[in-house]
């Protein structure tokens, strides 16, 4: 590593730190894009098998080249801008949707050291950045000058804002018990306690003491990424495709990438905050990045499973769930955790 640093320093001189950071960004984004591509493939395969069909199997063995073919097709296609659309916003909106989905990865730790920016307020950064994603959707719906897209944008705005609140509360509980806003520290905090010392660290992860928050975060995460059964803002059978009904070609694909990128992001954050990140579930196995990937994959599978099983919520029922169920549950559990921490039964010291 030192040799690499010296070599870089020698070639680039003063701008080496910037080049090195750029390299690291590429190293995160490139595999991420690949995962997004193959998540679409996995989705089609998994849901296919759940629905007594076999999913893509024509392009490459088991249809493995399918996502590449889809990407190429979308790249070739014309981006049609509707005549009444606000052209500038119409083009900027997909970028606004995908930028936060990628920027949030800057602070996501893959293990102790493998993190682009190990900043102290990384949790805060994540909450701030992911809240930006909704602007892309609202602006796309507005700029399309289409009634369906407009309805989709309105739904998205209301939905994302309300689920952000319960998501935030869930994270506050995590913050309280970990005593840190730093994601690496949050993972470390889960490696302590009675169960961890017995070698059963999966019982000392946050999901157990914060079970209601874990569920709220998981469900709010599904809602936040606009996935079934909370996909009211694209609601195929109601408002056709919602906010991206007028988009085609790569502009559409970018929304798609953002949605799947957000899915992976939410799964990763759930793993880090509630499922112990890269920690191994039992003492005799080593910790490692593979554990994180396994946990992320398991949660992503849940996303796909939900989609194959549940009918879609109606817009007002979705809001009711957010405001009348999740927010009260969060508020109560926040107090419970606070009291718990102050009581002699505190398990987090």
């Amino acid at each position: 590593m030192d040799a690499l640093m010296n070599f870089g320093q020698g070639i680039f001189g003063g701008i080496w730190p910037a080049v090195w950071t750029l390299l690291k960004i590429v190293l995160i984004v490139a595999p991420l894009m690949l995962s997004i591509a193959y998540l679409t493939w996995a989705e089609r395969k998994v849901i296919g098998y759940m629905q007594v069909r076999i999913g893509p199997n024509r392009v490459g063995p088991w249809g493995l080249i399918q996502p590449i073919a889809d990407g190429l097709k979308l790249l070739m296609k014309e981006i049609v801008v509707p005549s009444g659309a606000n052209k500038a916003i119409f083009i900027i909106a997909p970028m606004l949707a995908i930028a936060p989905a990628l920027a949030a990865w800057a602070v996501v730790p893959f293990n102790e050291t493998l993190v682009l920016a190990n900043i102290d307020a990384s949790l805060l950064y994540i909450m701030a950045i992911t809240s930006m994603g909704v602007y892309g959707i609202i602006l796309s719906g507005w700029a399309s000058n289409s009634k369906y897209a407009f309805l989709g944008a309105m739904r998205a705005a209301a939905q994302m804002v309300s689920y952000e609140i319960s998501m935030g509360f869930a994270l506050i509980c995590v913050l309280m018990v970990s005593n840190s806003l730093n994601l690496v520290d949050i993972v470390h905090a889960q490696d302590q306690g009675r169960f961890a010392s017995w070698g059963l660290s999966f019982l000392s992860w946050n999901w157990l003491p914060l079970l209601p928050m874990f569920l709220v975060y998981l469900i709010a995460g599904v809602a936040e990424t606009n996935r079934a059964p909370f996909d009211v803002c694209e609601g195929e059978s109601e408002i056709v495709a919602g906010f991206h009904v007028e988009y085609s070609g790569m502009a559409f694909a970018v929304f798609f990438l953002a949605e799947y990128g957000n899915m992976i992001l939410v799964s990763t954050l759930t793993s880090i905050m509630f499922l112990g990140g890269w920690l191994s579930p039992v003492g005799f196995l080593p910790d490692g990045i593979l554990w994180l990937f396994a946990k992320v994959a398991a949660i992503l599978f849940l996303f796909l499973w939900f989609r194959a099983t549940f009918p879609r919520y109606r817009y007002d029922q979705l809001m009711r769930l957010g405001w009348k169920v999740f927010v009260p549950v969060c508020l109560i559990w926040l107090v419970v955790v606070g009291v718990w921490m102050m009581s002699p039964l505190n398990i987090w010291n």
Partner: protein
Amino acid sequence: MADIRNFTLNFGPQHPAAHGVLRLVLELDGEVVQRADPHIGLLHRATEKLAETRTWVQSVPYMDRLDYVSMMCNEHAYCLATEKLLGIEVPERGKYIRTMFDEITRILNHLLWIGCHALDVGAMTMALYTFREREDLMDAYEAVSGARLHAAYYRPGGVYRDLPDRMPQYEASTWTSAKKAGELNENRSGSLLDFLEDFTNRFPTYHSEYHTLLTDNRIWKQRLVNVGVVTPERAKQMGFTGAMLRGSGIAWDLRKKQPYAAYDKVEFDVPVGVNGDSYDRYLVRMEEMLQSNNIIKQCIAWLRKNPGPVITDNHKVAPPPREGMKTNMEELIHHFKLFTEGIHVPAGEAYAAVEHPKGEFGIYFISDGANKPYRMKIRAPGYVHLAGMDEMSRGHMLADVVTIIGSQDIVFGEIDR
């Protein structure tokens, strides 16, 4: 200040939930429907007018294309009306075959309905599960008529031919290995009746899978309960029939009230709802599938024991057997007259209706004694139900409109005719 106007949304004709070509002009206040204005006619094919220039038998295939998910029931109404004018009787076995295929058709229709309804409400897996079962019933259609959808199997006077003794088989190909084909052919080794019996034994298991996925699902209930409520009085006033009427709690079923075919000889129950909402209609149709399954079982048992003719021996209506035609002058003449001129139907009027999967499907004929109807009128249940759209969806949200369309089980083939 600019005045605030309601949002007008053109829902369809190109819309994933438009069930074909429904064009619904919705007036929305936010997402709440203030007025729903259905526009029809985009699938108009002038079936009634076409029938005036076709002989009586030639119009049978047009019936398939009316409600293209319950083909044989449409044919049944047409044949019943023709037989009424002709004053002929269908042989007993023909009646049982018609009863059995009416019920197969009912299951076919309801399977498509629940699949599409669930898909509209967002549970897309249902559609693929129901198509798995539809496949078997489509094969039964194919076995008797050669066509999977537009069967043209019923004829005035009976059905075209007796049930086949063997089922179509899968053959090994590039995509189907010999082993796979053998597995697929396992329940096709016997006659059509064996195949259907096997299906009726399997169907309750599939049916309970649908119940598991939907009936107690909280989201499904939230989306359906108290959506599109129709009171029994309004249901009668608006002329609703079928599950739309029974869902409101009125036990009206033509199979019981004016039995035709062999419905007076088979046992079945008529499920009714309580609240008249979409959920009750869902439960009614789900139960109807099981009842149909029972009727099919009874028909299979009867048909196994009672061989006989399936179409009338009145050769002014039904063609004579082919052997007879080759040896017998009179039958040759009958054959020639039938296939050149067609049936001659006495002058008069007749209305016959069947309990179609969607409601009362009726055919009204005026005959002037020629070999073509003077006028044919189709009473399509979906047309009447669609007219209730505005009343049912007013005050509900946009997503409920989709639920209500699904719950009405409308098909544009019959509405636009």
